[in-house]
């Protein structure tokens, strides 16, 4: 039994203590880190978003065993939705709409009032986030529907193609109707505002957020929001894993035909896996858009899909603490490398020999290759044998022994 365990089933007392300790550490973290500069907290903010993504992808890849290589598309859907409904972008859309299809454009103006012509739409976060989850879930089902019959490698290619298609649309939906503002992306996305407190800080406050008289840097405020969301995601996905639905997913992963024979409606269950996984991506995307303040197609390339997959694979496919570990390692390590390796090189050799971006990519590639060759269940596989993906990844022990 390992020292660090979050296994509530077998060692509940130990697991609870560990969780409490970790929570305290996580809450204390930004207060220490921000003393060394806000950029460190910012790195962890993004890492938390990536962990959310990895947990969402883990539903599709880990639980249901469906290799999805276009997962970042749902992240993009969430981010662009925020961009469209919480920024001046809608005004640009309307302008192009009125120009090309006056009737429809004028009807929209009369529906929402003259004001959106200038300012666009600025929906509250309470509307945008559920909307992002819903729309992403819809796209998830949309991707799932034609791929239901496909298995393994074909599914991987189709999802990859889906991710590319979404990216092509992001780049080109600028004319005749300007939805995405093309390659430049959407700027001035509203920061998140919860109960009247803007997490980017009010104007003139030098991005300091005041909550009940207590001020903290904007990145710290976002940190706590993302931390809360991550904890919620972990809670939801771990409850899902042990639910009837989660067991159906695992059954499909291990043997689809047998699962069908046991009376599982494989079509609906697979579609649910796609759309539930996608909705987490959508929420993370909405957060990303508001956090960054802009969205552009660059953030949603194939490499990002692969990065999220690498997190899931590295940590341990199907094991939630493993996936979180993978997310932390692969999201934070490259940034730490960027801060350490580049100055170190300049100090040692007087020039930059290897760029951090190169190291980042190499890390993803190596993680995928080495883990699959050496330790296919991941760095931190599930302690329960039945939770590990056998049919999908590891060889049967009997077969290997023979």
């Amino acid at each position, binding site marked *: 039994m390992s020292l660090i365990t979050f296994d509530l089933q077998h060692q509940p007392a130990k697991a609870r203590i560990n969780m409490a300790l970790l929570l305290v550490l996580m809450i204390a973290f930004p207060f220490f880190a921000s003393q060394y500069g806000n950029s460190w907290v910012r790195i962890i903010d993004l890492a938390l978003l990536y962990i959310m993504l990895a947990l969402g992808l883990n539903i599709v890849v880990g639980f249901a*065993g469906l*290799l999805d290589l276009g997962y970042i598309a749902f992240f993009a859907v969430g981010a662009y939705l925020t961009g469209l409904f919480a920024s001046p972008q809608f005004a640009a859309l309307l302008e192009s709409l009125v120009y090309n299809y006056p009737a429809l454009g004028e009807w929209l103006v009369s529906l929402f009032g003259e004001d959106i012509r200038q300012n666009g739409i600025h929906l509250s976060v309470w509307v945008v986030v559920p909307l992002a989850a819903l729309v992403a879930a819809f796209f998830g089902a949309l991707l799932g529907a034609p791929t239901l019959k*496909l298995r393994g490698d*074909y599914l*991987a290619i*189709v999802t990859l*193609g889906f991710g590319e298609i979404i990216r092509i649309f992001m780049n080109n939906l600028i004319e005749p109707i300007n939805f995405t503002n093309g390659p430049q992306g959407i700027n001035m996305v509203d920061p998140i505002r919860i109960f009247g407190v803007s997490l980017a800080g009010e104007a003139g406050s030098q991005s300091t957020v005041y909550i009940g008289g207590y001020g903290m840097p904007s990145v710290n405020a976002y940190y706590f929001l993302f931390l809360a969301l991550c904890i919620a995601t972990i809670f939801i996905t771990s409850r899902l894993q042990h639910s009837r639905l989660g067991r159906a997913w695992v059954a499909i992963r291990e043997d689809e035909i047998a699962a069908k024979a046991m009376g599982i409606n494989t079509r609906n269950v697979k579609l649910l896996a796609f759309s539930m996984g996608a909705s987490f991506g959508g929420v993370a995307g909405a957060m990303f858009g508001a956090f960054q303040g802009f969205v552009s197609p660059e953030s949603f390339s194939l490499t990002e899909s*692969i990065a999220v997959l690498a997190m899931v694979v590295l940590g341990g496919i199907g094991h939630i603490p493993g996936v979180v570990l993978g997310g932390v390692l692969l999201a934070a390590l490259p940034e730490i490398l960027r801060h350490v390796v580049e100055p170190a090189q300049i100090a040692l050799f007087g020039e930059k020999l290897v760029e951090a971006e*190169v190291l980042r990519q190499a890390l993803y590639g190596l993680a995928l290759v080495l883990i699959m*060759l050496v330790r296919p269940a991941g760095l931190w596989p599930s302690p329960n044998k039945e939770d590990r993906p056998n049919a999908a990844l590891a060889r049967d022990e009997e077969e290997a022994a023979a």
Partner: protein
Amino acid sequence: METFVQQILNGLVLGSMYALVALGYTMVYGVLNLINFAHGDVLMIGAMVGLSILHALESHFPGLPGYLQLAIAILGAIPVAMLVNMLIERIAYRRLRNAPRLAPLITAIGVSILLQTFVMAMPFWGRNPLPFPQVLPSEPIMIGGAMISQTQVLLLALAASAMFALVLLVERTKMGRAMRAVAENPRVAGLMGVDSNRVIVATFAIGAALAAVAGVMWGANYATISFTMGVLPGLKAFCAAVLGGIGNIYGAMIGGLLLGIIEALGAGYIGDATGGLLGSHYQDIFAFVVLILVLTVRPSGIMGERVADRA
């Protein structure tokens, strides 16, 4: 009408490159039931090596005729690409040959990323798009009001002869027979005395050679190459292989050409067809639409027969 002829020509040019790459996918799939995700990056390696050879020729032997330069570049790129692909097989796939299919797929993605990273890290290649020297004369040849460049004519000729050579190899030689035997049933082929490891390595090598030809000619045709150039052609070539019927080499050729023509015609007419709503920059979508359609309507593709557990 002129547009039509022009787009058909463009489609054939594009399609013959897809066909060359698709052959590599389909042959590997035939013997191993594995998608070699890194195949598109082998094309990219071929193009990069070709570029470096052209640069070296320019500085050491200026004034060589263009066709000769290009021939040397292709001949130099082929062995490098072969070596890379054989290494990939040895390191990433061989140990996972009996593992469930998700595992080699994930390593393949990893290898693809690593190859791109390698090229990105090389000081003489790097991450920025590189101009590919235009060594062939640039005046185009006119056919029925449509234009085709000399590079493209050479590309068509090369693709046709490479495919012809491949057919001869597969149908007439002992190695070809062994390949067909392994594709049919690796275990029984082994019992008949076929060294399946050798056959698999040879398959990877042949696929890489074809990809290298496609890579250098891709550079010569489009005049810029970059470390990510292999991703999209690789994906589309896979679509082409599925369209033709994966595992079938004639299918890959037909699928490649067909996909090229579909893309070119689609790009040429999508604007008119949708009343200006979508433009030619949506060209890249067709391959994936074709892929999804084929997989849902006829997963065996045009030429494929056995599909029971494929799709």
